[in-house]
Structure formats: structure tokens, C-alpha cells
């Protein structure tokens, strides 16, 4: 899921960096103070999730868990995921520093989208319904991320359809697993700490 250094053309890199800076800015401004620890925990979750590998045929893909971050954090997913991606690039050599902006957008933008689409459903429903919304969000985040990655590659000259197919097909198992994990996590959170989703939604509206 991480695009590496040298795969993208400079305009795409610059555009991605600009979008990432904008997203991080929005995330930092909208972040209520009491949510910062939650952002830290989800950032660490995302950081470690990339080490959880799922074998697919001869190759393997790793977990991403950006949907969960988006559901809990909303726009604040941008800074949280950016930090995790930066550390992954430095420690594990996943992706790279020049593509950091593009990777941040590829992963955080779907997270924010999923947060906007599915959080209302989670807040409204019973734990069981919330789990379904959570699973939907978890799967959707991966699908959107695949599309974003394919788009970034296509803008750099690679044919869009084969690239999208390759990325999307490789991530179908991840999509299913992430849907299950996100659903389970949301179910648990809704049972023991439902304000995780509501409190944050309310406080973002205040600014």
C-alpha cells in the first residue's frame, strides 16, 4: 500500500504534499485536547498494523486499519497517520520521505471520508448495528485507499485500469479482514465506551 520513492512524477509528489499539509492543518486545528491521547494510540496502532502480514497467494499484504482511525478521529486522522507513516518510512523503509505526502493523502483521506460517512450510523445504532457500520467503514477505507494509490500511479503515467486492478485485487483479503477487525473494535467501543464516537463528533462541531 505504500508507494515507494521514485515511482511517482514530481507534480504528483508536490500535489500530494500540498494536500497532506492542508489535511494535517485541518486535523490539528479541529483536534480537541482530550482527544490527543486517542490520536496517539491510533497512530501507534496504524504503525504496528503494517507489520501484520496477510499472505495472499505467493505474495503478502499487510493491515492498514485507517478506517478505524477515521471513525474515531475524523480529520485528526491526518496528523495521526502522518506521524505513523513518517516513522514507518524511517524505521522500516516502507514508502519513503519524498512520497510521504502522497502516502498520507492516500491513507488519511479515505479515513476522513469513512469517518464522515459512517460515524453518524455508529452513533445512532445499537452496538450490533454500529459493528456493521464499522465493518462497512473498515472495508470501504481500504477500497478508497486502493483507488487513491492507483490514481496517484495513473497520474504519474502508469495505465490506470491495470494499476487499479492490481492494487484492488491484492487488497480484497485485507478489506475483508479489516472489515472484521474494525467491526469488532467498534462493537467493543460502543459497548464499553460509546462516547468515543459521540464526544468527538460533538466537539468538532464547536470548532
Amino acid at each position, binding site marked *: 500500500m505504500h508507494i*515507494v520513492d521514485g515511482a511517482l512524477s514530481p507534480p504528483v509528489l508536490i500535489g500530494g504534499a500540498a494536500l497532506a499539509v492542508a489535511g494535517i492543518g485541518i486535523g490539528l486545528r479541529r483536534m480537541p485536547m482530550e482527544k*490527543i491521547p486517542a490520536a496517539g494510540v491510533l497512530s501507534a496502532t496504524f504503525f504496528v498494523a503494517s507489520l501484520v502480514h496477510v499472505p495472499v497467494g505467493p505474495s503478502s499484504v499487510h493491515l492498514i486499519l485507517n478506517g478505524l482511525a477515521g471513525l474515531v478521529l475524523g480529520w485528526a486522522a491526518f496528523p495521526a497517520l502522518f506521524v505513523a507513516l513518517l516513522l514507518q518510512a524511517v524505521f522500516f523503509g516502507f514508502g519513503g520521505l519524498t512520497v510521504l505526502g502522497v502516502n498520507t493523502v492516500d491513507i488519511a483521506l479515505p479515513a476522513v471520508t469513512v469517518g464522515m460517512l459512517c460515524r453518524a450510523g455508529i452513533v445512532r445504532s445499537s452496538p450490533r448495528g454500529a459493528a456493521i457500520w464499522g465493518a462497512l467503514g473498515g472495508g470501504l477505507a481500504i477500497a478508497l485507499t486502493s483507488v487513491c494509490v492507483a490514481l496517484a500511479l495513473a497520474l504519474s503515467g502508469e495505465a490506470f485500469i*491495470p494499476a487499479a486492478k*492490481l492494487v484492488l485485487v491484492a487488497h480484497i483479503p485485507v478489506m475483508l*479482514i479489516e472489515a472484521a477487525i474494525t467491526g469488532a473494535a467498534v*462493537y467493543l467501543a460502543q459497548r464499553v465506551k460509546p462516547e468515543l464516537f459521540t464526544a468527538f463528533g460533538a466537539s468538532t462541531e464547536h470548532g
Partner: protein
Amino acid sequence: MRRIVTTLLLTAALAAGPALPAAAHKVVAGAYAAGDQIEGEVGFSDGSMANNALVEVLAEDGSKIGETHTNPEGVFTFTPTRSIVHIFRVDLGGGHVAEVRLDVADLPAALRAPAAASAPTGPATTPAAPSAAVADRPPTPAQQAAFASALRDELRPLRREIIALKEKNDLQSVLGGIGYIVGLFGLWFFLAARRQMRKAGGH
């Protein structure tokens, strides 16, 4: 409640099971001199090799010197003709790109000497300089070549292991990364709290 915990544990176990051979989904490539050729390997860090992938050979300024393909084991060979920095670039699609840089000092012996534009014809007959320093009866070029090739065969698994080792993520880096995250978010929390307290004090 207990059912949730068991479900979560089960999910965690399922997720962690395949994680044990922590292989990253990432392109790895290496290249080294082999006789008068350059040999290299391309594959994914989980062990699968790149079959019949196009390897572009570029000069330092980005101009193309030539190209070659990998065999089913992910191995490619290229015969260099110029004493310059060689950059091998492989694009396996889907954003998987790898570049290997081979400096002049790592080129095959015949090309290793500093490129002197004035003497491209002369040294062709004399074998590589390092052999002159050996004992009374230096080995013949044929013997040298045989040694070199045997040594290369012996070293190949070692090279592979080193490439694999470079891609390994050990617990220290994982814990270090988590530590950084905790520290950064703690700092952020501190700054936010200080700002809030200042605001509260100002009013």
C-alpha cells in the same frame, strides 16, 4: 462481555498468526560484479522473485545505457562496457520500484580503474592490476576466473541472506517507533495544555 473478549482475542490471534514470518511487501534488489558482468537480483522481500521483469540500466545523469530482463529466479545479468556509475532500475508495477546503484569501485575489475579517456586502448592486453602484487608465480587468468566464480557461488546464499536481513524489522525498531509516537503525542498534548492554560489565565 466474555464473548466479546474471546472474539477479540480470536481476531488478534488470527491477525498475528500470519505475521510471524514478518516479511514486508516491498521490492528488494541487489547488484554486484560477477566476472566481467554485473549480476543482480530482484524480488519482493517476502521471498518471491521477480520473473521476467524489465531492468533498465541508467547512467548517473539518467540517460539509458541499456536494459536486461530477469530470469524466473529474479536474477539478471548485464555486461557493462563503460567505467561509470551504473544505476539499475526495476519497475514491477503497482508502485513497486527499486533502484540499485553500483559505483565505479564496484564494477568488474576490468572497468574499475579510473576512466582515463586517453588510454582506452592500451590496458586491454594487461590483466587487472591487483594480481601483480601476489607471489612469484601469480595464478593464470583462467585459474583466477575459476577461483572468482567458485567464490561467487559460495557467497551467493550469503548475499541473499544479507539482503533479507536488511529488510527484517526487529522488535527494537517497533518499540522505538511506538516510543516516538508516544513522545510526539505527549509533546503535542503538553503544548495544547499549555496553550489552554495560558488562555484560561489570560481571561
